[in-house]
């Protein structure tokens, strides 16, 4: 096989055994790889009604056919499982160097089954697979875990050959928003995949590989990679791709705020007066040390930062846009120091920053409205209180005090205090930082996302606000169902291929570029038609899993705030989300019935 390695490592944690399986080339072609292929395995092997934290659930680390090839932004791997946060099918995507290394070690996927009797970590060195005790590592933050494992491997140089993905104390304590952290600060963040890893007593996955990734023709492939790099330097990508290296993803803060959709005080309004203070421009001027890129990425949107403010001193990576917006604007905080500190803590404890921001913002609103008494928290937690953000983040990761409730997710917290409508999430997962009242397509995108509220399942912002390749009016819902569907299908392919979504969102790559890249890397016979069909197949497969897991049409909705309370100010003033208009149209073009269930005709067209 080309592009794919053609090998899957299956690890049974209960018996400390493993087996290497061959990958079926036809299956690989139909489901592309990564997200699609691993989900196919999950759907086939795991009962959708299983308890996500039981040993019957499986955890899959997967790469795509383009991962590690050196093509633009080809450093992604994915973690696939059933989500403990909302019972949906979960696929979290991360960059750094871990994914490519896993492929150089010779595996497209690593499937974890069962549960280790006591904490272990798995060490993979090409064909050698070892189970090692992680009893001494249990309880350690992710960065320290990496250091200790590297030290154990031997000389520091030997240790530096390995790439590590691990969970922190949050994952161990089954915090439902826990993530998997690799390369110290890259996160497979959403859906609580870290809690599943914790439930399996798997502390870390350590890989080193010396093998290559086969391609059909290396000279043709070289030209392709060069072309993909040159496209980054061309005018097509001028605004988006060139703004990312300079300001990072937080370049969005001012743009989104001017569009009146920056989540402020738990999405009570879309305009944050102090946006400039938490913007990418200010990050660059104050805390930035240097830009950090993932494997093969010319955009390098990562920010290595340092906080000198004594109260919040620290050094690490972040924050990126979603983090500053949710921990900043949504919590009413206009100071980068506590936001960045909370980001560092999330990296160390292994927690998703989007959900952390949402949960803290929800708690702050509950507190301010008097539904959550101060004695339950132990200190004042009003909007704008940076110290509270930092304290609450730590408490949530360690499940201390009120943190124990927060760790069950924002919905559980809001429900416990009698106001579930104050948690801004879909399918119990927190909303990313774009208010759907002022960007209608995103509302549909959140409501229909197969893993709960999510911005990377179809990033309507790219066309509704940023105008990558085309520009649509964000305030109207006309025609958005088509845009969102097309984006969802294309995103499925990009994720599955192992590329970063930014190749589409920032660089302006389209379907034809994806076909070229997949075809030159794999030679499997991809065309524009079957690539998009693969995307649609992946989407419907996820939908079917969710339906069987108990998700219904009633879950395809938004929090009442966006449907009933008009936006109080800004460009979107007076608007609510037109979800009720978009949803039936969306079901229709998806080939689903009025209850959001794929019709038999659709399923047979997709071969499901």
């Amino acid at each position, binding site marked *: 096989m080309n592009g794919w390695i053609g090998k899957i490592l299956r690890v049974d944690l209960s018996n400390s055994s493993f087996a290497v399986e061959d990958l079926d080339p036809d299956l690989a072609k139909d489901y592309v790889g990564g997200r699609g292929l691993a989900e196919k395995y999950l759907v086939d092997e795991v009962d959708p009604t299983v308890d996500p934290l039981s040993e019957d659930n499986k955890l899959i680390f997967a790469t795509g056919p383009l991962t590690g090839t050196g093509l633009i932004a080809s450093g992604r791997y994915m973690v696939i499982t059933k989500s403990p946060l909302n019972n949906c099918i979960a696929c979290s995507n991360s960059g750094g*160097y871990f994914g490519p290394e896993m492929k150089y070690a010779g595996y497209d996927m690593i499937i974890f089954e069962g549960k280790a009797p006591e904490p272990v970590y798995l060490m993979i060195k090409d064909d050698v697979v070892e189970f090692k005790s992680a009893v001494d590592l249990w309880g350690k933050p992710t960065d320290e875990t990496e250091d200790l494992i590297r030290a154990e491997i031997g000389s520091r*140089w030997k240790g530096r050959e390995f790439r590590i993905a691990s969970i922190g104390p949050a994952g161990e304590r089954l915090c439902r928003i826990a993530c998997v952290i690799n390369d110290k600060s890259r996160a497979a963040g959403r859906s609580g995949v870290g809690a599943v890893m914790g439930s399996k007593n798997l502390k870390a996955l350590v890989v080193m590989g010396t093998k*290559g*990734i086969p*391609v059909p023709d290396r000279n043709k*492939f070289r030209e392709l990679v060069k072309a993909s790099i040159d496209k980054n330097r061309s005018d097509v990508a001028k605004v988006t791709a060139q703004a990312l*290296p300079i300001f990072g993803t937080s370049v969005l803060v001012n743009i989104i705020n001017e569009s009146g959709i920056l989540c402020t005080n738990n999405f009570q309004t879309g305009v944050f007066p102090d946006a400039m203070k938490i913007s990418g421009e200010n990050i660059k001027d104050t805390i930035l040390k240097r830009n950090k890129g993932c494997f*093969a990425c010319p955009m390098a949107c990562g920010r290595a930062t340092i906080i000198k403010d004594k109260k919040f001193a620290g050094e690490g990576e972040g924050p990126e846009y979603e983090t500053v917006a949710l921990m900043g604007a949504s919590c009413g905080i206009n100071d980068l120091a506590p936001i960045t500190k909370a980001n560092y803590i999330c990296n160390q404890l292994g927690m998703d920053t989007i959900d952390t921001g949402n949960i803290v913002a929800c708690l702050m609103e509950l507190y301010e409205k008097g539904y959550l008494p101060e004695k339950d928290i132990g200190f004042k937690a009003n909007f704008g209180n940076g110290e509270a953000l930092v304290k609450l983040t730590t408490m949530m990761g360690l499940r201390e005090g009120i943190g124990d409730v927060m760790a069950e997710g924002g919905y559980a917290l809001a429900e416990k205090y009698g106001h579930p409508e104050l948690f801004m999430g879909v399918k119990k997962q927190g909303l990313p930082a774009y208010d759907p009242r002022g960007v209608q397509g995103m509302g549909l995108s959140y409501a229909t996302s197969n893993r709960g509220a999510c911005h990377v399942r179809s990033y309507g912002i790219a066309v509704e606000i940023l105008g990558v390749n085309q520009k649509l009016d964000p305030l109207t819902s006309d025609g958005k169902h088509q845009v969102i569907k097309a984006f969802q299908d294309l995103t499925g392919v990009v994720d599955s291929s192992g590329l970063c979504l930014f190749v589409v969102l920032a660089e302006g790559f389209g379907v034809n570029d994806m076909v070229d890249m997949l075809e030159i890397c794999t030679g499997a016979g991809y065309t524009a038609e079957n690539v998009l069909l693969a995307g649609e197949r992946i989407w419907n497969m996820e939908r079917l899993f969710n339906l069987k897991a108990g998700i219904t049409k009633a879950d395809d909705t938004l929090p009442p705030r966006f449907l009933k309370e008009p936006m109080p100010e800004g460009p979107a003033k007076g608007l609510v989300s037109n979800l009720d208009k978009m949803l039936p149209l969306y079901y229709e073009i998806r080939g689903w019935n009025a209850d959001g269930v794929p019709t038999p005709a659709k399923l047979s067209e997709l071969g499901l």
Partner: protein
Amino acid sequence: MKQKVRKILIDFDKCTGCRHCETACALAHITEDSVNPRFSRIKVFVDLEKGNNYPVISGPYTDAKCTSRGYVTIKGETFDTCTICRAACPEKPFFFEPGTEVPLKCDLCGEPPDPNCVKWCTSDALKFEEVEEEVDDVVNE
């Protein structure tokens, strides 16, 4: 005597750690149809603690007892000279061809030299430029 030579200049501050140079070099030198950065004669050492990236171009192999190991402090920041040492050596498991374990050395590829790593660098950390430098009278290899 002084002489004009063309050299690959490295600006550590600009490197983002994307490792495109490794892919470029590996693809230019590998003889089979595969992508494998282990065949590269340039390697980006990523310092996860400080967030620094050090692209290092492989020099000649040496197995003599090393005398250059130590630390230098520049503007208050301490650097490990072992990290930026160009040698392929028994201590560092890099710059050896997988399978054969033959030490790899940069050959300034291209005719005339036009190194692939520089052409593919997207952060301008690598530059191929003419510099004037003091050289020994003895002709360099």
